[in-house]
């Protein structure tokens, strides 16, 4: 870190200051680059690859749930030769463990926070790079090491990690999970956390120190607010997960007894202790995942409604309130552990209070779109989809915040439906919105709108059927983590619904191929992107697509907020309905 600061040429250096020239060797340009735009793309590629892996795992799970005990078509014999292509209960457990782990830590985190956080933050605040470019490089390669370790765990003797993405003891102790796989999982999570904290140090510092002159906090795009607040949560709470991982590692490798219950003759630790540590991190984590998506959606709704964001400041304060509350609600994940009713009630109340800033934000989204001159571009469609899906998912959270309802619903698919709607479907819709929106800036080419719209419609409809259906399943009593629902008489009537959900999920999976085709086709053959294809005023659109090595030839001076849209005075003087943040405007 110290080294990076020595080499770094600070932003906005006075005239005559020497910027380091762009590296010319392939090695420094594309592999070990310190350019935030390159690192952002590296994170994006890595995240997309693992998104495909984790998505494939979920397809296998859906096959087993709708066709229990039948060999998986096409790939079954290749993947599970020992059982003749059938997903065994042990395999099913490994599948949901790896699906959750990869989606949360190795797909969503790299795509949104690593990819778009890196790419957007300096460009949107008018900086030439991150505050610590070398640390940024280190952050990516630490993440890369984490993915390598996690990939290795797939092939460990005795099978892949199988104690859930939460890896609760005693399932994850040396007794519950013998073999090296679970140890590799712990190491991968630790490295992943180290990478996230390095990123957080960079993002927080960059936003505090490197904003362009005039870019006050309340002139920052909401996207930057989302990333910045998520980074604060990352810096504070990922270390708690890292500590839990270290103690679990010691328990597994050295034989310490933190998470092993005591016996009559030997004192021991407490398995529930791990759950506390995990959820102290885990609840902020869900906001770490959704905050960037919220920020992006807030900006996009304004951009494509051609109106300033309704209640920008209210929106920002709602985000801040949610960030603060997110640190004190984690106990609602543990209602079923038999905590003191007094404590549970406090957690219940605090959890429900989160709906106040959340609905405030929802209202400002609706206010932004209300009577706007909507441009239903693909990024706008995905942003609107996020609002709808998150709204539906958020309301189902109220059921789970309530202790009495939670005790019934906790071990059912209702929870699966709820968290998929909120922190996976909504977040991924945000990630797709970001991709369709910033692709031209990242790669200098436009994506195909028609394919994008088809991708959106298919994805949204199948999301509603899949995860809405899971809510119904859970309400009807079907347990989570159950490899074969047809094994129980009382669940057999739910099989048609399970089939419907699986078919919807398969269509969802197939629909993502439209995105893959669109992405690669546009990457090579898409029409060249102009500097400002969406006609919006944030700083990244004031430079070429893709931006030059140091982003800004001259550090911009900022005169206004990010959503200067639809101003009649501007339209009259300039003949367009938007004003860039670095334009003084007609006076």
């Amino acid at each position, binding site marked *: 870190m*110290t080294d990076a600061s020595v080499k770094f040429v600070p932003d906005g250096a006075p005239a005559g200051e020497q910027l380091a020239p762009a590296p010319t060797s392939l090695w420094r340009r594309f592999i070990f680059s310190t350019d935030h735009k390159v690192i952002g793309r590296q994170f994006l590629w890595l995240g997309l690859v693992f998104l495909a892996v984790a998505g494939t795992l979920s397809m296998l799970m859906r096959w087993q749930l709708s066709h229990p005990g039948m060999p998986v078509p096409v790939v079954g014999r290749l993947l599970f030769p020992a059982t003749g292509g059938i997903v065994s209960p042990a395999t099913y457990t490994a599948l949901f463990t790896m699906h959750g782990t990869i989606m949360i830590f190795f797909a969503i985190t790299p795509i949104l926070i690593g990819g778009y956080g890196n790419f957007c933050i300096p460009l949107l605040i008018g900086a030439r790079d991150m505050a610590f470019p070398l640390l940024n490089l280190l952050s990516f390669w630490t993440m890369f090491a984490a993915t390598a370790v996690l990939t290795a765990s797939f092939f460990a003797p005795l099978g892949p990690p199988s104690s859930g993405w939460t890896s609760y003891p005693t399932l994850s102790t040396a007794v519950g999970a013998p073999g090296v796989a679970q140890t590799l999982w712990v190491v991968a999570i630790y490295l992943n956390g180290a990478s996230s904290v390095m990123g957080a140090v960079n993002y927080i510092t960059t936003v505090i120190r490197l904003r362009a002159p005039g870019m006050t906090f309340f002139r920052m795009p909401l996207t930057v607010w989302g990333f910045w607040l998520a980074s604060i949560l990352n810096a504070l709470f990922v*270390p708690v997960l890292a500590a839990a991982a270290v103690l679990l590692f010691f328990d597994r490798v050295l034989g310490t007894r933190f998470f092993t219950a005591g016996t009559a003759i030997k*004192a021991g630790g407490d398995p529930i202790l791990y759950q506390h*540590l995990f959820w102290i991190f885990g609840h902020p984590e869900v906001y770490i995942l959704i905050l960037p998506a919220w920020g992006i959606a807030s900006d996009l709704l304004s951009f494509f409604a051609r109106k300033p964001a309704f209640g920008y400041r209210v929106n920002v304060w709602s985000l801040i309130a949610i960030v603060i509350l997110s640190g004190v609600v984690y106990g609602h994940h543990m209602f079923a552990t038999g905590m003191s009713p007094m404590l549970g009630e406090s957690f219940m109340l605090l959890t429900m209070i989160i709906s106040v800033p959340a609905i405030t934000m929802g209202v400002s989204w609706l206010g932004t779109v209300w009577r706007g001159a909507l441009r239903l571009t693909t990024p706008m469609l995905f942003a609107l989809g996020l609002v709808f899906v998150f709204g539906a998912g958020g309301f189902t959270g109220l059921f789970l915040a309530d202790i009495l309802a939670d005790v019934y619903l906790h071990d059912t698919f209702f929870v699966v439906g709820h968290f998929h709607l909120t922190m996976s479907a909504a977040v991924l819709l945000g990630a797709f919105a970001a991709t369709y929106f910033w692709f031209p800036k990242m790669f200098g080419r436009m994506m195909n709108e028609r394919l994008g719209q088809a991708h959106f419609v298919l994805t949204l409809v199948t999301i509603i059927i899949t995860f809405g259906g899971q809510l119904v399943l859970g309400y009807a009593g079907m347990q989570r983590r159950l490899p074969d629902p047809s094994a129980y008489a009382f669940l057999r009537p739910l099989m048609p619904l399970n089939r419907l959900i699986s078919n919807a999920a398969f269509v969802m999976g197939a629909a993502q191929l439209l995105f893959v085709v669109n992405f690669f086709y546009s990457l090579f053959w898409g029409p060249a992107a102009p500097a400002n294809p969406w006609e919006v005023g944030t700083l990244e659109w004031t430079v070429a697509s893709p931006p030059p090595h140091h982003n800004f030839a001259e550090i911009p001076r900022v005169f206004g907020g990010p959503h200067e849209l639809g101003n009649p005075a501007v339209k009259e003087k300039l003949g367009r309905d938007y004003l860039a943040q670095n334009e003084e405007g007609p006076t």
Partner: protein
Amino acid sequence: MIAAAATNDGARTAAPGASDAPVGDALEGAATLSVGMAVALGAVFMAFAAVLLAYAIVRVQAPGWPPPGEAPPPPLWPWPALATAAALVGSAAMGWAATRNPGGRPRPRLLPPLVLATVAGVTFMVVQSLGWRWLLQTGVRPDSGLVASVIFALTIFHAAHAGAALIFLAPLVVRVGRGSGVRRSSVAAVASFWHLVTVAWLVVLVAVFVA
């Protein structure tokens, strides 16, 4: 609902932002580094807090401390006392280095405190290693019981951060040794990390070996 002039910040004037001050000079870079270091220290603090919380919960729930049938933690002399001395010397040396402005000819002024800190840091690591070896030789292993679990886990977790402190210091020592300049802010940042690691050691010392 009319969009006219609905800026987020009232009038469209260049409000004095945080970075409106003259930028690009050394002071500016120093402030950036100290913000980054503050965030990093906050993260390390949270990790230590979580580990100590785990210890507290384990200890509160145990049937007495040390639990029946387990040996008490080792005495303060020689192991923890020597480690504490090394940590304090290292931190003091880094504090000394941070007060010596490395502008101009840094080598003669900065080299003694940085070398002293390195020696103290290495000594600390050696003392910890000898401490663990001594525990193992006396039959106390990480899986011996709760007290042993806590001693090994907390001292290893702490030593990992002490090792990181040494790694952060290394480039400074090399630069100063070669006679090339280092930024005052870099020395201050590394020193602040050393202080945090020393404070963390004192907390571990009190929590594990004294209390």
